[in-house]
């Protein structure tokens, strides 16, 4: 397949389409792409989606000012209520957070996530930023979505160096494909139309499990128009720059 769309737009639309109307959805720091996807979903099919974030602005009317940070005051300034990070965690602990967006540096087929270290935990070769909320949100959110803008064999590995958390993942979205975690294993869910089975395989350090090869939907014209409106400065690709 060929596609003229940018992978980041395919990713953003794919994520937006994972979100259902009325769901409570949280993104953290350094999370522009999911923030834009949430805003897209809310303006398309999910008007009652509840957008939660670190600064605590429930349903910010606009994300257009959140340039360098997805944890800044702008999200609160235009929100409907104040519901800060502490409370979002509590909400997830109560089983009432529907979707959480989380990061990570390494993933393996068994749904292990590493956001902590490469090498020994106490004297690491590489100290990573840390899992932030992952270790408590992945086990408790109803649907944990991981997005990662790198898809290479050092990211999708046979076995992670360190298990920051594991299990209860729902989807992993990369520039090449979407994985789904089911029956304890990562399965290839859809391949982006800009990529191919071969490319995904060449860049994945573990066996690709799938039934049939399916493709991620192309962004629609309506979605692309709305993306221009909700994210005029293309913050969604900040991680890819």
């Amino acid at each position, binding site marked *: 397949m060929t596609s003229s769309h940018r992978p980041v737009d395919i990713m953003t639309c794919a994520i937006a389409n994972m979100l259902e109307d009325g769901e409570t959805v949280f993104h*953290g*720091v*350094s999370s*522009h792409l999911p923030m834009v996807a949430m805003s897209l979903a809310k303006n398309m099919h999910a008007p009652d989606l509840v957008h939660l974030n*670190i*600064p*605590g*602005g429930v349903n910010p009317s606009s994300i257009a000012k959140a340039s*360098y*940070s*997805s*944890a*800044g*005051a702008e999200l*609160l*300034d235009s929100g409907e209520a104040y519901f*800060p*990070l*502490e409370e979002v*965690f509590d909400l*997830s*602990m109560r089983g009432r957070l529907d979707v959480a967006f989380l990061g990570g540096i390494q993933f393996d087929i068994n749904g*292990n*996530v590493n956001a*902590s*270290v490469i090498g020994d*935990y*106490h*004297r*690491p*070769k*590489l*100290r990573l*930023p*840390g*899992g*932030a*909320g*992952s*270790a*408590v*949100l992945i*086990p*408790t959110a109803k649907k944990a979505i991981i997005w990662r803008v790198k898809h290479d064999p050092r990211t999708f590995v046979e076995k992670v160096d*360190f*298990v*920051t*958390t*594991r*299990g209860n993942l729902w989807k992993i979205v990369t520039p090449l494909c979407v994985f789904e975690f089911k029956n304890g294993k990562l399965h290839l869910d859809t391949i982006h139309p800009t990529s191919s089975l071969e490319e995904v395989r060449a860049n994945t350090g573990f066996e690709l499990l799938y039934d049939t090869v399916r493709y991620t939907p192309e962004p629609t014209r309506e979605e692309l128009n709305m993306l221009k409106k909700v994210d005029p400065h293309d913050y969604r690709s*900040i*991680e890819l720059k």
Partner: protein
Amino acid sequence: MKKVMCLNKAAGMVRDGDTISFGGNVLHRVPMAFVREIARQKKQELKIVKTAGAHDIDLLCAMDSVTSVDAGFVSYETKFGLASHYRRAVQEGRVKGNEHACYTVICALRGAQMNVPFMPVKGLVAGELLEKNDYFMVVEDPFSGNPITLVKTIVPDVAVIHVQECDQNGNARIYGPKFEDVLLSRAAKKVIITTEQVVPAGMMKRNAEYVDIPSFLVSAVVHTPRGAAPASCPGKYDIDETSLISFLGMKTKEEIEGYLSDYSSRDHSGERTALRI
């Protein structure tokens, strides 16, 4: 009891070896003037506690003021990359990186607020953070017999919180996101407020219900206009990208000492006006 004091004296309240926590989050409303003063005073062996830190932790690690960092996330946001001084310090074994899950830092501070030795945590049920860290423990809930994770309480000796408004008694008000600062002010043994403005007590009282930190919890008030820079301070200023990027390019301790001394007079600039109040 005079609480309004100069930055120098307030930073002197921090002792080597203290467990210290800074308000704000990543690049927002961080008490950077105070952090810089700690660095200039060459404090040693600080144990830093924070859900998500960036420039504060990175700078103090660069200056070898730190022995451990308990945090869920230490990094600048995407655009500004990783906290390289922190990373290197951990990788070289100079700093112990005690990874938390942000929420477990919050729970550890709630433990301090309530003065109990631990806090039960629902979500932390799997992975090596549980296994490698002695501040987590899985026990049996004596009521049900089911397993439950506990996180050990962390009591900061000092919390330093930067706010937009504070009166001379220490009643402090935060505009915009409060992050974990209200909790911090309850968890710590000593609370030091740095503030954009020292406002008259009568004015603060007009919106008494919105005082976030009441005076009797506060030990010191320091007037530090632009005291969060180069981080942002909602309603006052955005990040100082130039300063931040210049810091991020620095490799040696000497360069950073230069950076600190460049900031020195700005960091102390509020003292004169504050004393007039």
